């Protein structure tokens, strides 16, 4: 009787572990397939143009004149994400500090819930809102005053703004990445043991000094990791960006001012993939995807390494 039960459990165990291993293998397989097909698709353009593709600026799909280059879109991606980070990271940090250090729980809990609600909004809703409402606010309340004040003196502001440009894209991307960065920062700060804070207070530190001395050293790498994850999200954002960045192509896509139109790697793929019919054009678009993949993978790997280092430090410190 007992031997019957043992053998059934072993069978179920094997089945269960088989399913779980299969699921993990499936994940690896999918990543491998994506990398493989993106690589295979970009072979045409790289054999036609070599690595020049990455630094060229033209984008001509007309039959007989085909020539493609990814440079303006790499710049566009990096610039719009940079603006998003410059605006988004300080605000996320401020929100995280407020919720974890300063606010009483009855304010902190609903506030953290609300910020995470922002993350749940689909990005196309942001895009529609930006296109129909927000870009006019940005144009009239931020861009026009900046242009009037600095248009003559600083070349970065020397273009008549009308709302559909890299600047607006950066601002809306910032709104999108704030929930991610702030929730991770908040969690990472919460892990810091209260004994550290109490020690700082007992030495006579003010609230800001406590945060600076007791909390920040603990969570530095976690904060950087969170920002990198936000950066990864901003870099990959497609539909939102294509609705408000202006969609220019070719050499005119290299932004020279904050109010220039631009184009990112993902938005160009989204715009042209459906209609591209020539082999070289398709290959160029897939190659843009390859560059984007490498960029995002790199950012995510760095983020993972930093967050893991933070957890190791915290658990190591706790066990002391």
């Amino acid at each position, binding site marked *: 009787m007992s031997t019957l039960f043992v053998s059934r459990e072993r069978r179920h165990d094997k089945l269960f572990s088989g399913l779980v291993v299969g699921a993990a293998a499936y994940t690896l397989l999918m990543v491998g397939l994506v990398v493989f097909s993106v690589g295979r698709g970009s072979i045409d353009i790289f054999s036609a143009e070599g690595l020049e593709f990455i630094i060229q600026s033209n984008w001509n799909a007309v*039959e007989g004149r085909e020539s493609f280059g990814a440079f303006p879109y790499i710049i566009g991606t990096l610039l719009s994400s940079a603006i998003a980070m410059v605006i988004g990271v300080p605000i996320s940090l401020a929100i995280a500090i407020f919720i974890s250090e300063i606010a009483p729980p009855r304010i902190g809990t609903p506030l953290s819930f609300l910020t995470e609600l922002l993350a749940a909004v689909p990005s196309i809703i942001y895009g529609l809102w930006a*296109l129909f409402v927000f870009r006019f606010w940005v144009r009239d309340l931020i861009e026009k005053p900046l242009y009037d004040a600095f248009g003559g003196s600083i070349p970065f502001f020397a273009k008549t703004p009308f*709302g559909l440009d890299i600047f607006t894209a950066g601002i809306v991307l910032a709104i999108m990445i704030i929930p991610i960065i702030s929730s991770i920062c908040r969690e990472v700060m919460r892990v810091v043991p209260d004994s550290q804070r109490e020690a700082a207070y007992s030495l006579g530190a003010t609230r800001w000094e406590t945060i600076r001395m007791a909390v920040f050293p603990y969570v530095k790498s976690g904060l950087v990791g969170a920002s990198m994850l936000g950066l990864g999200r901003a870099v990959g954002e497609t539909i939102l960006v294509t609705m408000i960045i202006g*969609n*220019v*192509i070719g050499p005119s896509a290299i932004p020279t001012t904050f109010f220039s139109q631009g184009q990112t790697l993902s938005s160009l793929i989204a*715009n042209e993939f459906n*209609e591209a019919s020539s082999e070289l054009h398709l290959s160029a678009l897939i190659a843009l995807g390859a560059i984007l993949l490498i960029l995002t993978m790199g950012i995510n790997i760095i983020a993972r390494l930093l967050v893991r280092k933070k957890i190791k430090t915290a658990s190591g410190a706790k066990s002391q």
Partner: protein
Amino acid sequence: MLISKILIGISAAILLATSTILPSATFAQNAVTINGAGATFPFPLIDTWRVEYQKVQPGVNINYQSIGSGGGVKQFTEKTVDFGATDAPLTQNESQKVPGTVHIPETIGSVVAAYNVPSVPDKGLKLSGEVLADIYLGKITKWNDPKIQSLNTDKTLPGDDIVVVHRSDGSGTTFVWTDYLSSVSPAWKEQLGKGKSVEWPVGIGAPGNEGVANAIKGTPNTIGYIELSYALTTNTPFAFIQNKEGNFVEATLNSTMSAVQSYVTTLPKGDGIWTDVSLVNAAGADAYPIASFSYLLLHKEMSTNPNLDQAKAKALVDFISWAITDGQKIGESLDYVPLPDGVVKLNQDTLKALTFNGQPIT
């Protein structure tokens, strides 16, 4: 444990039953579904045809996916659909991949230059082809440039920058627009040429006709190109463009029809090469200079398409015969320009020449 096993068994049984019973239910009705894909421009028309044709032939359902001209050509080449639809005829490269294609123009559209100039609230700003090309090349940058002002002495134009709008997605509308600019401006032809997507030197890109119309409405001092039907439905003012004879013509059903009329005798046969077919810059005192066909693509020997059997091929050909004759009146009420008689005759000859396994279909 036992209850969950029972539940799994029941749901499996239900799944099995529905997957076998439902398909046989559709077979029982003897319905034919014809699948097509392609250009967005004729989608409202084809969709209305789908509804109206069901009154003529209740068993026939047309399933059309408007994924864009390029997508339509791709799916047609890969034989995943029964017919393709495109605003631009097949290029040389594309025809090499699928020899034996016939083009059947099923409707006509025209592209207008829509604008948003606060001091010119109505349609009627006069523009010439060279001026439009220079605007899109970035050579004319202000609305009160003498080249524009001299054509419009009765209007006050602002000294603001012209904000140029073009398409961000590949599009048949872009193909027609750049075809026109190439034919009126040697500089444009040399620098940019014509295509579903070109390397715009200036301007912002918006997706789809709707996106361009929205960009024009939302930002002052803009100019952009959209299909006439979109300009009419969104009440966007558009320009009167100078035609070959020198007259400034408004885009209407009549002026577009007269443009097409002048090209009818030059069209190739259905199974010929349509790559260079162009209706822009037509001769004729009241011809509108930016008109174009929208085409349906079929295989001449229809059995080469594995999706088609004899019955489906006949149903498809019957539908197209109806669309190019009775269907044209329906198009008029939706602001689609009807085919002139010469083109209808050309199409009917093309349909007569279609075969299935060597046998004519009609």
